[in-house]
């Protein structure tokens, strides 16, 4: 798909906020989908992944799903489903159009051009939001590939707290390209848990921008197990002193799936800490990608940055590509990263087998143990249950 006809299937002029959409779509048309020639997309060829698919607007459809108990917001093909949502009053919706943002690349430009809906969460200073589920459902049943591009906004006032559990599921072929804009006031805490369990034919490209003020904490864990092609790109910026961020993720991929976890943590204030643990388990001919960059500004003294990324290759055709970067301009810092790639340890397998554990179970025990470090910060019970179920299902479906 060339840059010029990317948006041919859309009537942007008919949507509100035409000027922002125009500007963004001009950028998208000029750049086209990223290819491996774009350094930020060196290991994920989105252009190739979308080649041969005609994008079109996402139609209003009904998608059946089992919904979680409690506070929840349901989106179907990018539209708010009021009937099935049980949203508290601090949850609103994107009004009309998303503001144009200079941040991000063409995927964000696509989102700006197409965004019509999205959740807008605003917590007042000190407000305790409890746990909120964000259920996104999608379906691609027609000739064109629906482009679903919600713009979500989460703003927590000083000292406010929220646990957001997002699950993305669907059927058929579609493109889900959500953008999250997270803003945390001083001392606020957001636990952001995301399960990407899209349809096996879908393409999922999520972008998360998080601005974290002094003393605030952004705790995130993402599990990638669905979609034929997926990318989760997080840009976390620590803007005030003593803030902290956890960007953990795990990927469980099989068949010919391609999964990409990309993070950029920017330390723009002193005394902040960032922690990242990303684990990939790759079976079949799956390909996993991890790109992580820690940037430390000159003023961000006493930064403590840590990044660990590990991959297990379970088959002969699986592939992992990893690019952990450090970009450091302050001297009084402690930054490190580590990466390991390997197979399941035969000695550990032997240990379990010799104690009577069947081979398949032994493998699953070891893989579960491998993932544990990434899952560790997920303390919320509801979130844990979601992830444990997804990991169990992946295993049962035959890793």
């Amino acid at each position, binding site marked *: 798909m060339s840059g010029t006809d990317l948006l041919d299937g859309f009537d942007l002029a008919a949507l509100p906020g035409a000027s922002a959409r125009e500007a963004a779509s001009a950028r998208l048309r000029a750049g086209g989908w990223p290819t491996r020639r774009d*350094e930020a997309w060196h290991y994920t060829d989105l252009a190739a992944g979308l080649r041969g698919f005609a994008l079109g607007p996402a139609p209003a459809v009904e998608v059946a799903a089992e919904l979680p108990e409690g506070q929840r917001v349901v989106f179907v093909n990018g539209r708010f489903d009021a009937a099935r949502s049980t949203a508290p009053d601090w949850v609103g919706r994107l009004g009309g159009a998303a503001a144009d943002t200079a941040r991000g690349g063409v995927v964000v430009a696509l989102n700006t051009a197409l965004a019509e809906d999205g959740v807008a969460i605003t917590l007042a200073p000190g407000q305790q939001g409890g746990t909120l589920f964000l259920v996104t459902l999608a379906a691609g049943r027609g000739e064109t590939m629906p482009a679903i591009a919600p713009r979500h906004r989460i703003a927590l006032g000083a000292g406010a707290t929220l646990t957001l559990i997002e699950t993305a599921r669907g059927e058929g072929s579609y493109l889900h390209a959500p953008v999250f804009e997270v803003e945390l006031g001083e001392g606020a805490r957001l636990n952001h848990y995301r399960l990407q369990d899209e349809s096996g034919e879908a393409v999922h490209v999520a972008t998360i921008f998080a601005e974290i003020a002094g003393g605030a904490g952004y705790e995130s864990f993402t599990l990638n197990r669905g979609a034929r092609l997926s990318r989760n790109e997080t840009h976390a910026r620590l803007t005030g002193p003593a803030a902290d961020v956890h960007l953990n993720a795990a990927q469980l991929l099989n068949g010919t799936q391609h999964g990409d976890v990309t993070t950029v943590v920017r330390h723009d204030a002193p005394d902040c800490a960032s922690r990242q643990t990303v684990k990939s388990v790759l079976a079949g001919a799956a390909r996993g990608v991890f790109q992580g960059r820690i940037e430390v500004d*000159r003023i961000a003294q006493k930064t403590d940055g840590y990044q660990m990324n590990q991959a297990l290759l379970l088959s002969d055709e699986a592939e*992992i590509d*990893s690019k*952990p970067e450090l970009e*450091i301009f*302050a001297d009084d810092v402690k*930054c*490190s990263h580590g990466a390991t*790639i390997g197979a399941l340890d035969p000695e550990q397998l032997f240990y379990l087998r010799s104690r009577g554990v069947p081979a398949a179970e032994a493998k699953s025990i070891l893989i579960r143990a491998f993932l544990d470090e990434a899952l560790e910060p997920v303390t919320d019970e509801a979130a844990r249950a979601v992830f444990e179920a997804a990991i169990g299902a992946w295993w049962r479906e035959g890793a």
Partner: protein
Amino acid sequence: MPAVNETIETVDRISGGGYKFGFETNIEMEFAPKGLNEDIVRLISAKKGEPEWLLEWRLKAYRAWLSMEDPAWARIHHPRIDYQDLHYYAAPKKPAPKSLDEVDPELLAMYEKLGIPLNERAALAGIAVDAVFDSVSVATTFRDTLAKAGVIFCSISEAVREHPELVRKYLGSVVPAGDNYYAALNSAVFSDGSFVFVPKGVRCPMELSTYFRINARNTGQFERTLIVAEAGASVSYLEGCTAPMRDENQLHAAVVELVALDEATIKYSTVQNWYPGDAEGRGGIYNFVTKRGACRGRNSKISWTQVETGSAITWKYPSCILQGEGATGEFYSVAVTNNFQQADTGTKMIHLAPNTTSTIVSKGISAGRSNNTYRGLVRIMPRAMNARNFTQCDSLLIGDRCGAHTVPYIESRNRTAKVEHEATTSKIADDQLFYCRARGLSEEDAVGLLVNGFCRDVLKELPMEFAVEAQKLLAVSLEGSVG
């Protein structure tokens, strides 16, 4: 914190000492006109009396170069280089001398000043020195001893004349003529360089050494080095350089190719101390080098060790292609940048065959307003069963105006391969500094000691003569901090 301030001052003062090896020697030069075109390539080839195939090879490289863009992906910044404003051929006017007696006394005096008295050093240290003065080799020693062992060690121009079949077989076989922008440029206009051939089963009886010199103003230098170790052979090669002080930026685009056959070992060590520019970032050498080794044979081994302290800009990625089963690649590097220096350096380890192993140890030290980047690639291909890589990249920051960056690419396509990578960035620890100071070491000595300790894993890989020189170099970098 006074300790920190003192350290910063120390580093500021490093430049105050000035560049120790900055002076110029006046030897009459014979220049080709400025600029680059096919005629210049033909002229270089003709001046060297090269055979037709080599001229064709150069022209092919030149045409490839014309169609290429200079790479923009490295973290380096410099004004656009006007390739038409350079001389591509410069040689001392006198014909090449047959013995040391014939060597220009002024040249010998220059080596004296650098602390490398050719004859003495060669005699004392037992090292054969193929000294490259600009473009033409002017002195080669210990040829007899090497000849007895069957080792060929000569300038590449001489090798083209005396051993054309060997040169033709291996030249460009590791770094093809059109490999990258600077390699293509080098292939088109390479002036001279060293050629080493160690035949089957021979252990080279001495460490081979070449001192590269850049001397003529406005003369880009395009060295070409080719080292071949046949089955079971082994050789250790030392490369070191210093350059006179000058204001204009100088381009240096060398190519080094190594070929190791079955069970062969090549150890290539570099101490690079070219003029880094002054404290304001004026002048200095642009060092854009392509170094690559092919481990073609079973259990062959190529080991790169480098200590990079000089040059305004370093763009250099000594790499290993592990083609033979059980082959080993190693990369040990210390890169020091100060003032406005920029270094973007690292390695590539390409694992193609089963049971191949590679080790990368990189130590970067940034001070002043410099930027120091490690950029590396480890790639495990599907056939590389049980391949193994270990990578360690550490960066040390001295002062808060510099930058340290790590950009590793790690790609594995084999389940049985094991890859480990770790990287750290920190400053000199206050407690370590305090420990040394409490035991009566001056601030400068303490920093020197800690920096040497930080680099130890790399320095210990250097041959003894070089290890001493390298430690001295690091010490020179810390010079001027007393009082």
